[in-house]
């Protein structure tokens, strides 16, 4: 987790409006290559929107997003190439239900990366093994548990050899007993030096893996620091209030 000064994601004064709703009101973040950033905040705070702006699933209203030295904008013809470098893991997994676990992982490698079917399949099997479910290669997503589906989704993203991984509340839709199996995969990934931006409320994961934690509310960054600073000695009242609410349970 050696955070260098080499910046891979640079978000400058980002605004995103959905009609009258202002999801982001001027957010600036920079993420160093190889670092792990955790974003927390109440629902509607704009944390998912920020994440989705980083791979242009949402197009910013104003401001700039730079990924690995390239500015993302609407006219960007090579947005698909940039996205291929950014893996994304969703809250609801979003596996392709008509394809087996293996095919889910093979498809984009083949048609986006241009790898041969054989090579893509080999990579897919390696990734399945890495997330600990190589025996489920030929099973359809509908027959997998939530935790297994999410691990296939992570394997699918990793198979593209991305430079960055974005996680949008990856454990929020999981039954409690399955959360650990997904977090373990994410922890390993962090140890290997993957650049990760993670929206999550898993404090344990944040403190074990993150270099930096960001608290967002109402479309703004309220406070940021190391996970220990933010979670144990928050400065802002809003941060304290939020933490007291999620730690009550």
């Amino acid at each position, binding site marked *: 987790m050696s955070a260098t000064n080499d910046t891979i994601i640079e978000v400058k004064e980002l605004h995103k409006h959905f009609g009258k709703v202002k999801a982001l009101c001027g957010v600036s973040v920079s993420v160093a290559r190889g670092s792990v950033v955790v974003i927390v905040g109440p629902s509607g705070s704009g944390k998912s929107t920020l994440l989705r702006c980083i791979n242009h699933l949402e197009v910013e209203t104003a401001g700039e997003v730079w990924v690995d030295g390239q500015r993302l904008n609407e006219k960007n013809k090579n947005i698909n190439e940039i996205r*291929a470098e950014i893996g994304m893991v969703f809250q609801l997994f979003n596996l*392709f239900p008509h394809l087996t676990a293996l095919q889910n992982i093979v498809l984009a490698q083949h*048609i986006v990366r241009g790898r041969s079917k054989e090579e893509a399949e080999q990579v897919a099997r390696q990734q399945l093994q890495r997330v600990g479910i190589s025996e489920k290669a030929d099973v359809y997503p509908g027959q997998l548990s939530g935790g297994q589906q999410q691990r296939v989704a992570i394997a699918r993203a990793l198979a593209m050899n991305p430079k960055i991984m974005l996680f949008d509340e990856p454990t929020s839709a999981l039954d409690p007993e399955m959360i650990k199996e997904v977090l373990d995969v994410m922890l390993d990934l962090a140890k290997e030096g993957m650049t990760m931006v993670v929206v999550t409320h898993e404090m344990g994961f944040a403190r074990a893996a993150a270099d930096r934690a960001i608290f967002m509310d109402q479309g703004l960054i309220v406070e940021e620091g190391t996970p220990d600073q933010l979670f144990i000695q928050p400065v802002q009242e809003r941060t304290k209030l939020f933490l007291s609410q999620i730690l009550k349970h």
Partner: protein
Amino acid sequence: MAVDPVSRGTERGAISLEQRPDPLTGKLYAVPWWLLAVMGVLIWAWYFIFSEMSYRDAFEFIIQGIWITVVTTLSAYGIAMVIGLVMGLGRVSRNVVFRNIARFYVEVVRGIPMLVLIFYVAFVAVVDFAGLLGLDGRDIPMNIRAIIALAITYGAFSAEIFRAGIQSIGSGQMEAARSLGMSYGQAMRYIILPQAIRNVLPALANDFVAMLKDSSLVSVLAVRDITQVARLHAGSTFRFRESYTILAVLYLSMTLLLSAGVQLLERRLHVGHK
């Protein structure tokens, strides 16, 4: 089982069903009488057709049109599927021009009675279009014009089916595909359409049954399908009863067979989804 307050009103009905004293009545209740009745009518009609001389003559005459009916239905349906897929993609496209062309086509076609549309396409649109290509519209046979007219009509119906199918797939699928670097076209082709088409397969199959019935409209263009041939037979022999009974029985037999096929398809898809 908890009693839902809303359904409480129907409870009494449910009890009286359970209290039916005679088990035989219960079994009789479940018999699909309508199906037996339809089968009975069909068997009786087919028996008539092959035992009565006048019916058999009419049948042998009318059946000459079956080839035209089948070819017209199949080819118009095939073209309609292609038009429908393209226009259905247009309906959900973010391209303003494409989206509006698709919407225009669908609204215009659905706003005109099919019979009128068939006249219009056959006698105006096809002729004009042939003129644009430097051909003489009169050289295009009525059979072809009829197929084009039906295809244009049904293309609009199936476009709406394809649109509904595409929209039935959650946005998460498109997002996941795009986040892996797939283009919009790749995501459509490999992720959205395979799922969407599977979902609307029964609806598309029902359209085929409807197309078979509506192919009878091409008789107004003097295309010699079974309807037109039946009209000719009735007109020349004055055996209206024989001609039109056979015509109705032919359509009913074909559509019932196809509907059974659609039901089978639906059941298989349902099982497959689990």
